[in-house]
């Protein structure tokens, strides 16, 4: 990791100059002063310098996009502005006044709201309670005791919540418990919460990573609306297409340093990637391996347990990359989880290489060579408190890396180091705790765990969610390689770009069942959306 830093430092100087120039230009043509002006921000975590001497300026009514690889420091920078983290050093001015933010409610007082990268809602509370959490609407009078007895005014907060929900396009009663919402809806609640603050700066940290097409459009409308009301917006995303679409200006981070800024007219995917990565990378190449007609995975009359829809039948061939598209909440994860033996399906049979396998538990699936890269890395993919070696070899101990129930530590380390080399995981040492790796590298560790088990069928649920272009590239290359090794892949993806570019075949799901299949010549955003929103329920 350190050597990599040297490399980038070596490659940055000239871009740095351009950037500061660009920075100046932007500043000069904004007449009214900065809403936020942060200078020389640095942040150090145990083991990492997340930010180094970062400058960020934000003008009134401006939409600033911040992009960068995983671990570039985007979220950290935002957490500092929102008072969640404390900067190690640096100066922050809000409306020209120098401030030490330091706490969330201080940030809120200053009118800075942050929509976090990961969901932060209380499932046991209603939408309204969550929206106004920490800023409850108070009952005006409690017999003169209202100073001491601070009671929550349910009616008002629910009324106001209803308006906000309309704004973000979520048709749900404000008193619905958050635990009854899908992840997508929960994300919209987060956005509503940010809006409820009436902040003068709203920060979105990867808000679209779990949003579907229409919902994303809705969000852009909201941002537009904010902008028109003179609210400034900071927008973080790995979907560079979106960035181009919404941003007035782009700030690029790499390894905790600003490597450049782009004003509206300069924003191009290539330019951003160049600054993010320090080099140009070739565009997504559509994958061009050959698919054998040998059926690797066959699913017959399968009914997803958590979202029971019409029975699902599908085949995946050796060396095929089949993409499951659909809106969030379509039940794709549940489908994958049921295949993998996490939940028991209502009905259905699973065949691998023509032989039927009974999957009652992940161990059965693993033994049959069907492996799942789960949607949620931190929750399901990794034991983040354990070191890299044990994470990569965790699944192997039982059948491969042990004798008489005793672990073969040497062999385990060999396997781990092989995987680390193959996947080019960036780390100090194999004994590093996984927690301290950046998102992309964590995902590679998950992949490494399964590659070491030589898979026949690989189920990948959002394999590139929240990981940066470079890591993505590497994941795609890896999938390509696996395809050549005749692995059958079932990929769940919500990112249209990805769906269309990597799929040998697209199967679309809605309400827990398959609503259609698209072959390359039928590929188009419209077709996917059409199938993804096509309800199969009668009545």
């Amino acid at each position, binding site marked *: 990791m350190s050597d990599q830093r040297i490399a980038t430092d070596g490659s940055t100087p000239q871009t740095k100059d351009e950037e500061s120039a660009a920075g100046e230009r932007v500043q000069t043509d904004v007449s009214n002063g900065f809403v936020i002006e942060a200078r020389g921000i640095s942040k150090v975590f145990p083991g990492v310098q997340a930010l180094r001497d970062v400058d960020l300026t934000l003008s009134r009514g401006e939409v600033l996009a911040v992009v960068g690889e995983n671990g570039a420091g985007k979220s950290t920078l935002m957490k500092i502005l929102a008072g969640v983290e404390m900067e190690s050093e640096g100066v922050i001015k809000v409306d020209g006044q120098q401030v030490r933010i330091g706490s969330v409610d201080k940030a809120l007082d200053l009118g800075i709201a942050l929509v976090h990268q990961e969901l932060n809602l209380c499932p046991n509370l209603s939408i309204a309670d969550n929206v106004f959490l920490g800023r409850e609407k108070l009952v005006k009078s409690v017999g003169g005791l209202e100073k001491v007895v601070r009671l929550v005014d349910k009616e008002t907060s629910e009324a106001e919540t209803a308006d906000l929900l309309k704004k973000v396009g979520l048709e749900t009663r404000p008193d619905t418990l958050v635990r009854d919402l899908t992840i997508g809806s929960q994300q919209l609640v987060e956005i509503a919460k940010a809006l409820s603050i009436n902040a003068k700066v709203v920060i979105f940290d990867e808000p679209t990573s779990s949003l579907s097409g229409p919902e994303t459009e809705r969000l852009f409308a909201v941002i537009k609306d904010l902008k028109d009301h003179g609210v400034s917006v900071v927008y973080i995303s790995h979907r560079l297409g979106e960035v181009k679409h919404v941003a007035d200006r782009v700030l690029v981070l790499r390894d905790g340093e600003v490597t450049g800024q782009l004003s509206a007219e300069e924003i191009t995917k290539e330019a951003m990637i160049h600054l993010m990565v320090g080099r140009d990378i070739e565009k997504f190449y559509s994958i061009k391996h050959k698919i054998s007609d040998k059926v690797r995975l066959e699913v017959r009359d399968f009914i997803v347990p958590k979202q029971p829809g019409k029975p699902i039948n599908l085949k995946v061939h050796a060396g095929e990359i089949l993409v499951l598209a659909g809106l969030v909440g379509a039940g794709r994860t549940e489908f994958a989880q049921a295949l993998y033996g996490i939940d028991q399906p209502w009905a259905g049979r699973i065949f691998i290489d023509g032989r039927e396998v009974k999957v009652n538990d992940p161990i059965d699936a693993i033994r049959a060579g069907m492996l799942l890269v789960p949607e949620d890395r931190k929750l399901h993919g990794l034991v983040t408190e354990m070191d890299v070696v044990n994470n990569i070899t965790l699944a192997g101990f039982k059948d491969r890396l042990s004798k008489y129930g005793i672990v073969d530590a040497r062999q385990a380390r060999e396997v781990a180091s092989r995987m680390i080399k193959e996947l080019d995981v960036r780390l100090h040492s194999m004994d590093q705790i996984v927690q301290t790796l950046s998102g992309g590298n964590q995902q590679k560790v998950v992949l490494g765990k399964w590659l070491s088990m030589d898979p026949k069928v690989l189920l990948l649920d959002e394999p590139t969610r929240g990981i940066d272009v470079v890591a993505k590239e590497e994941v795609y290359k890896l999938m390509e390689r696996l395809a050549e090794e005749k692995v059958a892949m079932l990929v769940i993806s919500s990112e249209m770009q990805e769906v269309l570019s990597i799929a040998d075949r697209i199967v679309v799901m809605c309400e827990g*069942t398959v609503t259609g299949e698209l072959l390359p010549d039928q590929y188009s955003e419209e077709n996917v959306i059409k199938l993804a929103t096509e309800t199969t329920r009668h009545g």
Partner: protein
Amino acid sequence: MGNMKRIAGISILLLVIVTITAIIDIRFLSPFNVRNVLRWTGLFGILSLGAAFVIVTGGIDLSIGSVVAMIGTFSAYLMARQGVSVALTLFLMLLLSLALGLAHGLLITKVRVQPFVVTLCGLFIYRGMARFVVGDMTQGYGTGFLGLKNLVKSRFPQTFWPGTPPEFIVNWSIPMPFMILLILAIILAIVLNKSVYGRHLLALGANERAARYSGIHTHRVIIIAYMISASFAGLGGLLFSLDLNTVQPSASGQMYELYAIAGCVVGGISLRGGEGNITGVIIGTAIVRVLYNSINIAGIATQLEFAVLGMVILIGVSVDEIVKMIAEKRRIMESADPEALQRKATA
């Protein structure tokens, strides 16, 4: 609504136990017995109420029993032995128990020691202190302090009846401890369900990070919860000592933390935190107390008292969990596609 269901469930459980016992021996419903059950429910319920607030945060308070012993001992010692005025003693005891809660809260939030450990040490320390200060000697109030004793001995409305109350009132007046419990319960119910503090408590109990990111002073909220628990334990200690009119520093209050927690658990409060339900706590405590009483009346061997208690808690909680699972299944059923349903039937 899930809560409503649960309340209904345990209410029925309580009713069943009462009915069965009454059938076995009708004197279970005699004024004398009812009064006793209510009195004990009142005294133990106060402890459970306090414990509930800590449990909502996802924490636990094992020090309750020792606080009961400590405050009980010191109250009797100061007032009866040292002749300290009642008012001053009560004030000091309140201060002391609040200080204990504060200490727990600080250690848990600032020093990041787990609640189990902090309060376990409390369990060891406070009883030791109590025993040491009075040299292991039993404390008591003797024949005096009638005013104070009315806190537990008096009944409502009987005691406050102008002139001689009628037979009915004498029989069916409610023991003061139960009245105290009801009043506290109402206050805490408002705090938990209507107040800002309650919202924050429930929020952090379910998702501390979310609470923190929303600008809630999670530490403060947690600390207050432990102060509530400790001060309620203190109040309980005072009342218990007055009720028995004697405190044995080394014995009194032993295992009361477990009863308090049991009351909450039976009342349907999950130790995972984020759930709170005052009514449940009251009914839960009542169930535990009635159960004791019933066991005696039903003529089950005293040795089995605890065994039966344990069994009932276990069954109650298990049923609760199973019901949850079934409800989840039903929810899915309803959302299911007809064809899927019919397939499942055939499969």
